[in-house]
């Protein structure tokens, strides 16, 4: 297991380096002069040159990259062009709201997806299966921002049961977490169904049946346990979907998280913040994938010896 862990850690290092280069080059890919961008439209030429020196943009690009990485390791992401505060401060404030939103969305989505998937697989080609799978493909096709607006209209405006936005109490989580999790629940349901159906065809399931185990024990005990292996990997990938989706959903519900900050920053062309956000999202996603890989190694001992 330790060797497996080491191997996986080694594998992500080149990806981390490439991602950091990509994000470093991000500001250089924007058409126009980055120094002018930071200094502002109406800055004098002297001001622009001053900013260029200050940001080290007059140095060779490799040196710039090394400085950038050094600063990153010290937690220095530069200053926001909009608020002039440290980017790390802006992001630090917004990290936890997004984190909790994704965690709650993921939790309900996995539970609901698993239940729908198992019911569909065991009631194959019956009405439960058709209902579950039609619900799942509908969940995949719903524009999340529209679903969010419709839920606000129903539960906040008409019924007045839940707040329409912001993050004041536990009630504020219900609508955004439900909206954000819908797509993931749909994917988990579809994947669980097909994975479980494959497993239920296996010989050891037939053995279980022939020795008289009851159907519930076969499904939940033997079937689902093995069907879970691919489901876990796929669920990890869905975390990425959630992180991306949070950007849209946070704007719908005025959630004080990273996603809303990103959209505000794109509108303002606040590049240091955009750059840092892209890095944070990518890092988070890479780390989650690593955790999933390790889980996969625990669930499926075969993979460790490959």
């Amino acid at each position, binding site marked *: 297991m330790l060797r497996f862990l080491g191997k996986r850690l080694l594998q992500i290092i080149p990806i981390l380096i490439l991602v950091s280069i990509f994000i470093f080059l991000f500001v250089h890919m924007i058409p126009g002069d980055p120094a002018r961008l930071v200094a502002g439209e109406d800055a004098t030429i002297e001001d622009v040159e001053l900013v260029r020196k200050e940001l080290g943009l007059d140095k060779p690009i490799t040196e710039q990259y090394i400085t950038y990485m050094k600063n990153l390791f010290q937690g220095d992401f530069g200053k926001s062009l909009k608020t002039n505060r440290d980017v790390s401060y802006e992001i630090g404030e917004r990290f936890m709201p997004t984190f909790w939103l994704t965690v709650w969305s993921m939790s309900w989505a996995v539970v609901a997806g698993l239940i729908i998937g198992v019911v569909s697989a065991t009631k194959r080609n019956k009405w439960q299966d058709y209902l579950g799978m039609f619900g799942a493909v509908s969940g995949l096709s719903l524009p999340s921002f529209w679903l969010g607006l419709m839920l606000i209209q129903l539960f906040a405006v008409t019924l007045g049961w839940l707040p329409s936005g912001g993050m004041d109490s536990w009630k504020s989580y219900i609508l955004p977490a439900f909206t954000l999790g819908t797509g993931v629940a749909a994917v988990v349901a579809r994947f669980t169904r097909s994975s479980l159906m494959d497993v239920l065809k296996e010989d050891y399931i037939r053995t279980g049946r022939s020795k008289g185990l009851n159907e519930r024990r076969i499904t939940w005990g033997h079937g689902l346990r093995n069907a879970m292996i691919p489901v876990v990997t796929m669920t990890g990938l869905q975390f990425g979907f959630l992180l991306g989706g949070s950007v849209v959903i946070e704007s719908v519900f005025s959630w004080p998280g990273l996603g809303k900050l990103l959209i505000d920053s794109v509108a303002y062309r606040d590049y240091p913040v955009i750059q840092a956000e*892209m890095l944070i999202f990518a890092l988070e996603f890479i780390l989650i994938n690593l955790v999933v890989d390790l889980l996969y190694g625990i669930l499926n001992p075969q993979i460790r010896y490959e």
Partner: protein
Amino acid sequence: MVELKLSNKEAYYQQTLENIPSKTPFSEFWRKFKKQKLAFVAFFFVVALILLAFIGPFITPYDITEPDYENVLSGPSAEHWAGTDAYGRDIFSRVLAGTQISLYVGLTSVLLGAIGGTFLGIVAGYYGKRIDSIIMRICDVLLAFPGILLAIGIIAILGPGLGNVIIAVAIFSVPMFARIVRSSTLAVKSTLYIEATKSIGTRPKRIIWKHIFPGTVSSIIVYFTMRIGSAILTAASLSFLGLGAQPPSPEWGAMLSGGRDYLNIAPHVTIFPGIAIFVTVLAFNLLGDGLRDALDPKIKE
């Protein structure tokens, strides 16, 4: 007696001849595809949508840009089936005209992504070694920005607008196509007939286009169809966030975003464009599911 035998034989030949056409890959596919009732309906719906994309702008009952201030935010009625928006424009007409934009963005972006991804995937899979690892590492980097984030990052560089949304969604589709095509290229490459083709000295270019590419087509088609739905969703989300189509364009996501401010007094302004997005994406997803089930030899009936 002899005559009877002959006619038997004839009947046998007749039957055999009749059976031959049903063995071609296409008719086999069609036979399986027709069994999927939902996908079959979705197929005709998609065809209708494509037709609507061409004629939609010409058959709108009202002008889609001309404001009518006498009729602001009125609910659905006999004159305005889906009501009117904050400028008194007929929402049904605008949704109809918007079909063209959504399908155009969905199809072109995925097509561009598929071309780029297929090329990279085949090259990586066929040549292997250094080229393979370089291409796949680039894909890993692009895939490290989950979901819509890569598209938002590209928009942040290029600036908002529908054209840039197409580029962003295309780039966002490239790594997925590359991975899928690479793995089917590897599968085809290891077959005996490719070995045979190589041994008679066929040039790599010919092997790729005549032998490998056709072997990857079915996985490309399935993924292509499935991807259109999510591309339309992504484009609509970007427009909703103000990064894509700008008002007064009748793009569905932009219409929805415009209706947000009137949600409590005129919910119909947001309801109808949303239904249009949902139904369109659903049709492409159902079609994609049906194609996958019909083209995947592993799925037994």
